[in-house]
């Protein structure tokens, strides 16, 4: 473990003996102290700043492209392009939420928020996932409406062009957001790889109806693509698997934005293929609805994992990587410990874990020493440093 120097205190060396530290600053005289994770502060800060920068660039790019599409759409008087611009607007909203959450999580803790503002990013991710669900629902609804309306002509070529443009935009942003996380080489090849797979799997299924009313068969609902699941499931799966802050964990907000964009690019490829097909054979209209439904279901399926993680944090459940039973048994195996109860382990946000419990010790034991041992054990074995232990003596 590395040793950082924090605001005036020394670090406890975790391996080996547990030496008490002289961190006078932790016991400030005021009522509330911040939830400062001294070990990870600098690393967190770095990660935050870089994530914010990336998202800022992504937002700016998105806005620029949206502007281009709006102008082009008004000039060409095509509703398709305008609705795609509206879709980019929803992307901007999602990025904005992520950005805000990132920024807010750096705020100082105060008396109303004694744990700091880290939870905001979880809530922000929840909001953007709900938006994804909402949009998927809206797209299904629109597809059904299009089917029922049965009006308008099909414009395969325009669809193709707009989808291609959207794909370029999305690829740029996917590369931007995903690029320094060690999977980058994988992802560079991702999108092309997906193009091929989709080509094989979907070329007979992607007929998209295109009419002027709704115009927009992009089905930009954030389909994350089967290829995703098939090939690189294990990359997308771990939301953040951190027991130590050292692992290159993707910030949950950047991950959300990245998934958003990647799914869009998959959809764009699908629509391009569909547009090409419609251009070539314009009679397959119901395929549109089927495709939309399929993609929406896929989107919802891929968000379920992230949603589950979010839910677990919000319900204050024990994080998955920590085995509460084992921890309890480990504690009880210590000599002086009689019992452990009211053990609560929960996470403020993914990666920041707290623990609170009551430990009952033999009445003749030295409470100080036991406290040291317990805290050291927990820190050593499970790497939880925000610990509150209430030592109780057994009543004789």
């Amino acid at each position: 473990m590395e040793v950082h120097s924090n605001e005036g205190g020394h670090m406890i060396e975790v391996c080996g003996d547990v030496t008490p530290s002289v961190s006078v600053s932790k016991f400030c005289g005021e009522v509330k102290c911040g939830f400062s994770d001294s070990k990870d502060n600098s690393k967190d800060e770095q990660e935050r700043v870089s994530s914010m920068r990336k998202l800022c660039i992504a937002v700016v790019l998105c806005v620029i492209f949206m502007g281009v599409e709006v102008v082009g759409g008004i000039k060409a008087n095509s509703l398709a392009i305008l609705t795609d611009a509206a879709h980019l607007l929803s992307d901007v909203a999602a990025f904005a939420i992520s950005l805000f959450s990132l920024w807010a999580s750096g705020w100082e803790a105060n008396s109303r928020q004694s744990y700091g503002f880290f939870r905001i990013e979880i809530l922000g991710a929840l909001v953007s996932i709900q938006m994804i669900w909402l949009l998927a629902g809206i797209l299904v609804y629109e597809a059904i409406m299009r089917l029922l309306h049965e009006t308008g002509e099909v414009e395969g070529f325009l669809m193709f062009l707009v989808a291609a443009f959207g794909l370029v935009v999305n690829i740029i942003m996917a590369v931007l957001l995903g690029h320094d996380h060690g999977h980058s080489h994988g992802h560079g090849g991702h999108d092309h790889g997906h193009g091929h797979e989709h080509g094989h799997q979907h070329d007979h299924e992607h007929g998209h109806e295109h009419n002027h009313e709704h115009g927009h068969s992009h089905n930009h609902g954030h389909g994350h693509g089967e290829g995703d699941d098939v090939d690189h499931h294990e990359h997308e799966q771990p939301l953040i698997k951190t027991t130590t802050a050292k692992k290159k964990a993707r910030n949950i907000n950047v991950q959300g934005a990245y998934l958003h964009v990647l799914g869009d690019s998959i959809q764009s490829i699908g629509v391009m293929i569909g547009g090409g097909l419609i251009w070539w054979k314009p009679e397959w209209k119901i395929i549109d609805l089927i495709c939309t439904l399929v993609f929406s279901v896929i989107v919802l399926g891929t968000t379920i994992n992230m949603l589950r993680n979010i839910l677990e944090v919000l319900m204050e459940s024990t994080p998955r990587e920590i085995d509460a039973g084992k921890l309890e048994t480990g504690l009880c195996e210590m000599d002086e410990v009689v019992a452990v109860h009211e053990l609560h382990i929960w996470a403020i946000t993914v990666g920041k874990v707290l623990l609170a419990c009551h430990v009952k010790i033999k009445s003749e034991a030295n409470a100080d020493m036991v406290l040291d041992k317990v805290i050291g054990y927990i820190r050593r074995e499970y790497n939880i440093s925000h610990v509150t232990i209430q030592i109780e003596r057994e009543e004789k």
Partner: protein
Amino acid sequence: MDSAILTQKQDLESPRMLNGEFIFTGGGGDRRYAFSRQTSFRQSIEPHTPNDYSKPFLSRSASSIDIPPATVYSQDAAENLWREEAGFLAQEKGPVNKFSILLVVSSVFRILKSGNRLTKRLLMLIFLNVAYSTVELLIGLLSGHIGLVSDAFHLTFGCGILTFSLFAIVTSQKKPDRSYTYGYKRLEVLAAFTNALFLLFMCFSLAVEALHAFIQDESEHKHYLIVSAVTNLLVNIVGVWFFRNYTRINLVYRNAEDMNYHSVCLHVLADSIRSAGLILASWLLSLGVRNAEALCLGLVSVTVFMLVLPLFKATGGTLLQMAPSGIPSSALNKCYRQVISRDDVSEVSLPRFWELVPGYVVGSLTLQVKEGMDDRPVLQYVQGMYQDLGVQELTVQTDYTVNSHSLH
């Protein structure tokens, strides 16, 4: 009110509680405090420790800021039923995952048998909405009116949200288990938050629709929607009547279910306001008022936004683990000063309190006890004091030496 001496394991029922009944606070009295069955829960003691631990020195006296005493799940028969049906769920790491159809049907029957009156009403409301939307969908498809179909979809989406609320109510009664050490009560707050969020989205979409109508200025396509709007309004008025006790804007939340029911009430209220707005818009249009639709939709959007915002802020605050709204910070500061003024305490640090659900406050605190003093009386004093204040669960770490152990 009486004062009761509680240990953490006895399930005393306050005489104020009635099982499954909905209590009105006197005719013409303050209806702001919507009571319902107090189903706060207690901690499950880990199976491995002997059950002789108790804190006999803790007493809960009745004070005006007191939160009603935490008791066990008072519907134990229902609990056992749930347990038998879904024993395996208790070990799962997530209630969302394995939820079979059989479970759904059996839980529906369980609600009908033993649910809270409000829960039953919610179930009825959902059924009503589903039936109505199905009928509307069929009529729309058969007769070709697209507006009816779209309305049916909107209603179905709303039904989905209501079902999630119901699911939250049912699931939140499960006892805490190994991975959800605080139990499932938070799910209700989450459901309320989801509801509030959905309503905010609806506001936004209504505003966009108003803008759209303003720009496009088409005023002729709403006529056949009047009948559907009227029936929609009626259905939602029924819903509002069911949950009439929660129609206050600034409701005080006493327990988790309050938030959930409030969100359901707001949902049906918003729907009915929207239908009323549509009816008003078409009437104004028939009178020849220009831009009536945009005006009415805009008005509806603003109204719903104002209604939903307090709920959104409250649920968001609970989920963000803000300082508990039920306990004023002045009281907490007073406690802090009292503890620090004791002889044997030299420092108090890192006091953190948060609300699991409204009415259940959890906290943690670190003390530094002066050298050589016994920590037991301090511990009991601190615990007792905060218990009186309404903090149900407090973990106090006492350090002895100046070289601290904890780097919080």
